[in-house]
């Protein structure tokens, strides 16, 4: 199906991320600024990579340290705005540009304040040497189960939305069921 052609250049990776994401707990909620939104992201890979760069109002990254805290998702906060997965830094010398000019794949997502946005599971698969296949997979029910088990209070106090498309009915349906139950 889709094989993302990738650009691998012999260059040093882009550095200088201006926002450091941190895996949150319920105790951190009070310190989340009002103009920030909560974000749930999953990252899965069958190959090593150093970090994923996310460009937006504040450029940030998911690095090995953050990934170590994934269980299997990470819950972070980001300033509201439009973001996009831009680069996978494989190591110090190689990177994959996700938004190369011919790409028709949408790597963008919106973060709104006051809600939990499930961005998707960022999946990188290596099928052969220097051949990588990346996509954002909608595993909403897994993200929901993660929040129910690990962050029930945060889930209770915040609306959960999916960033990928407004044509996924799963979270609205769950929300409707919860509303009906109340």
């Amino acid at each position, binding site marked *: 199906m889709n094989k993302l052609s990738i650009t691998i250049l012999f260059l040093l990776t882009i550095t200088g991320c201006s926002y450091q994401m941190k895996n949150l707990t319920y105790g951190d909620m009070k310190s989340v600024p009002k103009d920030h939104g909560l974000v749930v992201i999953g990252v899965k890979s069958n190959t090593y990579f150093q970090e994923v760069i996310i460009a937006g109002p504040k450029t940030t990254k998911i690095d090995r340290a953050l990934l170590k805290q994934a269980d299997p998702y990470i819950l972070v906060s980001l300033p509201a705005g439009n973001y996009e997965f831009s680069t996978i830094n494989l190591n110090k010398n190689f990177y994959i540009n996700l938004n190369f000019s011919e790409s028709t794949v*949408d790597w963008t997502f919106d973060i709104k304040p006051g809600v939990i946005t499930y961005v998707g599971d960022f999946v990188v698969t290596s099928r*052969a040497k220097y051949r990588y296949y990346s996509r954002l997979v909608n595993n909403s029910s897994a993200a929901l189960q993660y929040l129910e088990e690990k962050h029930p209070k945060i889930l209770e106090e915040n609306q959960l939305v999916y960033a*990928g498309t407004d044509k*996924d009915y799963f979270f609205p349906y769950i929300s409707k069921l919860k509303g009906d139950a109340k």
Partner: protein
Amino acid sequence: MKQFILILIVSLFFALPSYSGQYIASKDIFSSANYHSFKINPKGNLIVGQMNLDGFNSLIVFRVSDLNAMEVFAIPELGNTINGFDWIDDDSLYVSFRLKGDLRPLRILNLKDVTGEIDLDLFDLQLTGYIVDALPKHSDRILFAKSHYDGEGYSLYNLDLTQFEDKSRSKQVAYARSIVNEGLSRQFGDAYRFVVDENKELSFVHELSDDESTFHYFDKERNEWLEIYSISKESESSKSNNDEYESLVYRPLAGIDSDRIAVLTNVDRDKTAVVVFNINTKQFEDVLYESDYYDIKGASWNFEENMLDSVYFTERGIRQRKYFASKNKASHQYLKSKIKRNSIFIIDSSTDKRHKIVFARDATHPGEYFYFNSQTKEMKMLQSSMPALYEHQFIDGQYISEKNTNNDLVEGFLYLPESKSKKPPLIVMPHGGPVGVQDVNDFNRGVQFLVNRGYAVLKVNFRGSAGYGKAFKNAGRGEWGKGIEEDIELILNKVLNRALVDPDKLCIYGQSYGGYSALVSAIHNPNQYQCAIAGFPVTDLPLVFSATNIKQIKSVQKAIEKVVGKIEDNYESLIKRSPVYNADRLNVPVLLLGGIRDDIATFEHTRRMKYMLDHFNKDVRMYAYNTSHGHEFWFGDRHHYIVLTEFLDDKLGIKRTLNDNEKKLYAEDYFFLGGMHRQGLYVEKSKEKAQYFFKKAARLGSLEARKELRKMGIYDFNE
């Protein structure tokens, strides 16, 4: 490779383990065919075939005179494949193969002195591409489609293999470069497929790009190439007949005369047929062969008699080849009278057409290969494709048909287990797709396993299925949870009216679309089914469009819309027809089987369904396999069908009285599953599930299972 093993095939055949009890061992039925793809040399004295046995993929050469077989090529089975092989001349073969996924150079095997123990020489051809024709009449020559250096398209060469035989790799590459201008098709940049005539000269070239398909014909009288036909994505999309560019068929067979060619096509017609095409007027003329109900799937031309030799199609579920030219027609009629199988194919012949390889197969048998001498009528069985199953009795499908609300004929096949005093429970088994897939009444491992365990099985070619023309196929588009299920109900009701099965023991099971259909049918007909089983299912129709960001690419969305319907216009309707959003209405036990690497119906479909059924406290079991859209290894199929029959027995209240042999066989299966779950091999690593299956095996007398349980500190084997 210089080691050759003399195998007396007959002794090998009888040495294979076989189980003669009532039940077939899952490990025997869920396994690859051991023998296949037999081919005879031009002279008709040697036969080559592929053997998959004892962990190796091999080629074996039979001497027709005494059926002694010799292994001439072997690679380990795991991760390696033989892609193709054929005779180049009377004593040479080529073999194309992959090692760990990588395509290796073509290997040329020269057999020396075939009268005694065969000796062998070999060399590798360092060219990338594929063999168009092995030119068996021409010693040491092949027609080779060589890949262009940029990887786009091919050029055709008539290669003299002796030019390569003694050259090193670098010298071979240099020689290949030196003949680059001798390509027979060098003017065709997007050459994709080549068709040769009776003299093995290039007669058609098919050029294919992303959005255009063009055919060229070599006009011998004018000594020039003519563009005879072209189909483009753009021109087809402007037509209103809902034809898909990708599903249009235009396959030239042969030149009939200077103005006309024979083509297998469905262009400008509903059903694929063999039609005469005028290359000057670009018009279709006479129909050489067509069926009222079915697409013709393949055809061959007889150059000697300049007439249609045979057509291949599926009629009432039976795959068959119909012969027209005199020699093969007579042989085929004779073979049909001698071999009692529904499908009989002459798959290869010697140059003089006297010596033939015959393949016979149907629902009751996975296949047998024969040697046949059309002159003396001598016939010898070469091998059964699955010797371990040879002594088992399998069941043929009964043909059932009915006209649906569109006035189209819907066909189904009912498999009834051998007569028992009670009417059997029935499993309705809709196929996947749903558009462009066809069920046939042929040997099917899953169907026969269920029938062997006492279940009747019903398969239905509902609207949308392939093989019945474009209109029938297109009628299934967007009919998820609607017309398709109406067609399944139509055939099911006909079966129930015949009172052949127990109407109170019905379950519906399918994979992919079939899984969706199982769930949605159980929701729509709460009193009809007692359980539903969904493998690799679609459960949420809007999720089909939003499963990944790749699926949201415009061209992908368009392709999905052609099967599911437009999301913009039908969003509410898609939600209403999604099992996930109707889980509260699903009141029968459900078994879900999903692939965690599935890119087609992503695992999210399975997990969402489980989540919702759990939410409404429904009876649901789920197994997650480390696979994509279907099983990649036979042990996956084994696990799948063992848990499936366990679920059916449980939910349909089937009580089995097992004899000692059967207990052993069931215990073996449950022990196997326990081991998979203990190690997390391909399935979820789970102590509970491992113990559950080990205990089942232990209760059936498995000493191995008892040992494993005791290692876990368990001495009570009850549930």
